[in-house]
């Protein structure tokens, strides 16, 4: 790989919640001007990983480096100040508050000083409107509550906000999953633009058609562990698809397979009157993940 310093790097990061090991020994590098796509099934640890990156959780072991320097974030506010902006799946928006109030939540622009320090509403409204029009949403009135916007529009407000404030790293948790085709393409174009602007982007999605065109690298997570990072040059779209479906890397999926096996047994037991037979391990190993994932 390159000799550049990664914008953000995780070195054997683990996160435990009591006795639950949510993340174990994750290492990952994301460079400026690149999009890292995080892949993995539900419960693979994607959300925990980005929450650790964004300061919601603190790693139990391991360290994170931001631009080569060790970084430890006590809260999301610290991560934001360090230039890591995250768009969470729940968007972190307050529906009853206006677009502008949401846009600048936690980092309001002010004028005046002392007790007369106040929010510069004119400037805030203008910026919110401009940033929204950049992403292709024409806001009629930035003081309207976010709750009146559609899901896609809300997503765009959240991303526009993150890009506006996220100077270095942008983290997106399934930004396209709730969107229609057109709005998803707007979001993807926005990701490409953020990359072109030199941001390091971490992008989580279930959709390979969204992931492959914009990603420069892929990291595959499974059951809290990393199955490795791949450059785009090294893998084809089909291989990525395979990885997302969890069909490959058999050696590391043993535990998962055992689970499928049990499911199979249960299914067979409930389906037919036949006696339950011990499932043939080798055949299940090959077929189960595929059928379980729908193809």
């Amino acid at each position, binding site marked *: 790989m390159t000799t550049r310093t990664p914008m953000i790097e995780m070195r054997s990061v683990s996160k435990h919640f009591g006795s639950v090991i949510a993340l174990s020994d994750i290492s990952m590098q994301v460079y400026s001007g690149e999009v890292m796509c995080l892949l993995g099934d539900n419960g693979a640890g994607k959300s925990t990983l980005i929450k650790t990156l964004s300061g*919601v959780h603190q790693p139990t072991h391991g360290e994170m480096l931001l631009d080569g320097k060790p970084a430890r974030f006590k809260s999301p506010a610290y991560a934001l100040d360090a230039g890591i902006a995250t768009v969470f799946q729940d968007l*972190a*928006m*307050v529906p009853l508050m206006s677009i502008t*109030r949401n846009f600048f939540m936690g980092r309001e622009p*002010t004028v005046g000083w002392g007790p007369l320090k106040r929010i510069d509403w004119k400037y805030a409204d203008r910026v919110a409107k401009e940033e929204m029009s950049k992403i292709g949403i024409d806001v009629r009135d930035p003081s*309207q*509550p976010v709750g009146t916007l559609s899901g896609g529009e809300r997503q765009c407000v959240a991303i526009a906000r993150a890009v506006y404030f996220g100077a270095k790293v942008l983290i997106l948790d399934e930004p396209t999953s709730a969107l229609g085709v057109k709005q998803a393409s707007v979001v993807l174009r926005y990701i490409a633009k953020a990359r072109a602007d030199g941001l390091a982007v971490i992008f989580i999605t279930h959709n390979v058609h969204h992931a492959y065109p914009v990603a420069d690298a892929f990291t595959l997570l499974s059951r809290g562990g990393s199955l490795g990072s791949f450059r785009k040059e090294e893998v084809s779209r089909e291989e990525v698809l395979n990885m997302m479906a969890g069909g490959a890397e058999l050696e590391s999926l043993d535990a998962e397979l055992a689970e499928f096996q049990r499911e199979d047994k249960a299914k067979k037991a409930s389906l037919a009157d036949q006696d339950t037979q011990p499932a043939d391990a080798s055949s299940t190993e090959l077929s189960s993940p595929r059928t379980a994932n729908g193809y």
Partner: protein
Amino acid sequence: MNSTETKPSVAPAAADQDERIQRVSFWKKALNRPELGALAGAVLVLAFFIAASSGTGMFTPAGIINFLEVAAQLGIIATAAALLMIGGEFDLSIGSMIGLAGILIAIPAVEYGWPLWAAILLAFACAGLVGWINGNLVNKTGLPSFIVTLGFLFILRGLAIGTSRLLTGRTQVGGVQDHIPGDWFAALFSGEVATGLFSWMAANGWMATNFAGNPTVTGIPVSIVWWLGLTAVATWVLLCTPYGNWIFASGGDANAARNSGVPVHRVKISLFMFTAFSATIFACIQVMDTGSADTIRGLLKELEAIIAVVIGGALLTGGYGSAIGAALGALIFGMVQMGIFYTGVNTDWFQVFLGVMLLVAVLFNNYMRKKAMEAK
């Protein structure tokens, strides 16, 4: 540019439509203001009592000052309760805090010869501590503030009664008025302002005078000044400052606020401290006014404050409301309480009216919020 293909409903020529949008949104904005219902209610109540109490003296200067004073005392704590409710929490310990603060002012001043200003500062310090504990308990345990402050409702009331009986053998402490003259700090909570203006108006025949030639109203009670001042400051904070934005965010969705970098815990602790301070201001004014403290003072005031705030358009779930609404809620409260007295209706009915008013306000608020979310 891809704006035309993605914008949901607006025609491309947005600039041409601005005139029309401007007019529509004026009404929408007016309807979306939380205090609209309270304003309509206040006007309605005002009109009703102007008609019903004609000739009873309710709307003479003295009568107006009377009901404004009732509204003002409630309004002082309602303002703080409004900010807290917008921030997503309740404080049921306000009423007990009033009783405790009164005792904390009266006993050191009367029994131990403290200067009044020191006793008042002691009360404020204790209030700050109570608010800080309330806030921290809510933050650290994640328990509903309803339960935490319900606990403090009893703790503070018990502390007030216990301390008072332990130190003085009584639950009432009188004689505070002797210490007021000459105390610069106590002056902030006692007496009237603009007395010169009222004398001058009486001298010019613009105001009725009593048999001794003094004006019927000698000045504006200091409680009204506190009420208007606190309402103005709270409105400024809510609408114009980052801290106000944090209050809305903390109440609207604490998790989202935290993830956006809002110091939710600090916001909530400061709001709990503010409600305790407001209870202490209330107690100061009352103690200076009556010259005595009583451990039973402030009973049910926490619920009256919540009623005023809800009538004022705040949502019980947080994230929505206004300080002006709370002031209007308190005004309705004062007008009805004194209006029932002036019109000679049995005051027993006051509570019935209060309950009905609360329910109507909540239903109306709920409806308005749905409307606000629909308006696209």
